[in-house]
């Protein structure tokens, strides 16, 4: 296949896509954990907010979320900043808008995954942590979270695949990711099929790598299942 000297452009786009996906994953996991904690909390307001968040975001197209944050985000931020007396213009770049939109979407689905996983943990695990004299937060990080990982990793792996594919949407607002760079190459070479096919193959490679990594993580997080390999 002849890339006519545009290979480096695609590689830089791939790097951008990977950065975007990993940043959104990190922020999205935080959203997911907070969301799950809120959904399981005793405070009705927190439960109500978390339910509203997941229902709303899971019914909206990711593209709409990206567009809203990119085009409307600065207006919203300036309005909030106005309360604190900051009146300068705030601009949101495509990368920040992309991370915000994708992590909000990822967080909504991750909330459900974490909630299910947290419910699977027997109550005795909490109680024994507290009985050992740990604080609630320490029990959560030392006892509960490692067990939640084991249950949540298959679900989170699927969600990350979705996230990885959704990164392509951020090219619509001008982030130089794989899609955008292949469009640049196409405008010079007039070979749309070749370059979009190459882009598709790069995404396939990335998703295949993610699958392999998820399987590896499942093994790491579940030492008990590794015991009796025949």
């Amino acid at each position, binding site marked *: 296949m002849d890339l006519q000297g545009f290979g480096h452009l695609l590689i830089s786009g791939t790097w951008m896509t990977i950065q975007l996906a990993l940043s959104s994953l990190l922020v999205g996991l935080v959203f997911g954990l907070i969301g799950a904690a809120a959904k399981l909390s005793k405070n009705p307001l927190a439960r109500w907010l978390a339910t509203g968040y997941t229902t709303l975001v899971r019914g909206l197209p990711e593209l709409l979320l990206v567009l*809203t944050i990119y085009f409307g985000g600065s207006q919203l931020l300036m309005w909030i900043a106005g309360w604190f007396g900051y009146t300068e213009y705030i601009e949101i770049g495509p990368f920040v808008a992309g991370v915000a939109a994708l992590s909000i979407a990822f967080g909504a689905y991750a909330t459900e995954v974490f909630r299910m996983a947290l419910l699977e943990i027997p109550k005795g695990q909490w109680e024994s942590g507290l009985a050992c004299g740990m604080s609630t937060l320490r029990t959560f990080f030392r006892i509960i979270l490692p067990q939640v990982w084991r249950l949540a990793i298959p679900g989170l792996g699927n969600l990350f695949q979705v996230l990885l594919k959704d990164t392509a949407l951020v090219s619509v607002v001008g982030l130089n990711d794989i899609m955008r760079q292949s469009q640049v190459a196409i405008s010079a070479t007039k070979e749309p099929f070749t370059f979009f096919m190459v882009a598709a193959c790069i995404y396939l490679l990335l998703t295949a790598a993610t699958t392999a990594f998820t399987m590896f993580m499942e093994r790491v997080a579940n030492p008990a299942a590794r015991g009796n390999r025949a």
Partner: protein
Amino acid sequence: MTWEWDVIWKYFPRLLEGAWLTMELVLISGLIGIALAVPLALMRASSRTWVKALPFAYIYFFRGTPLLVQIFLVYYGASQFEAVRESLLWPVLKQPYWCAIIAFSLNTAAYSAELFRSAIQAIPTGEIEAAEAMGMSKSVQIRRIIMPRAFGIALPAYGNEVILMLKGSALASTITLLDLTGMARTIIARTYTPLEMFLAAGFVYLAISALIIALFRFMEYRFNRYQYYHHSNTPDDLDPQLRDPHIDQK
């Protein structure tokens, strides 16, 4: 920040026009998708490697790449080949509407084929064996036992797939179609009220997904009625020795 309700009211009918196109895209590509998915799923559930290989590659490609790439491959990619541009298909392939439908159908076919396959494989073996014992041929089995059973099993998961398709249909706006998102973007370009218009569009999307969810709840209740069947409880003053714990669940 200024919030302009008037703009929302003024342009709401235009948004609904866009919503109509969105629903049309979802419905048409959903139907074509099912038609493609059923044979794919049956082939994918086969135990012969050479039957499985082609649907496996197809499903792997369409599930592993972003929908945006697939739409662009159909809409922009097809024009790279002289043969396509001179073929009879060109009047169809040069229209964004049909390109969107082709891309969405191929995409949803891959996802639903995987759903149907897992549903086919979730049918209890005893039911297939019973059909075989009755002397049904493979095609009669598929028609009378496998398809209706798989349909019921796959229904809840397929509802989710339709919602995902609805969300994916927003990508039609990237190839100049005026669907709900596309319409909102056009109005914003004219009025510069991004937050108001996208919020309004978002609520229309939520309303459509609520509609789809309600429809699938109804269909589940209708076609999987056996799961919703409850025995009426025996009277409380019944002799305890006559009680049947299987029927008496509260």
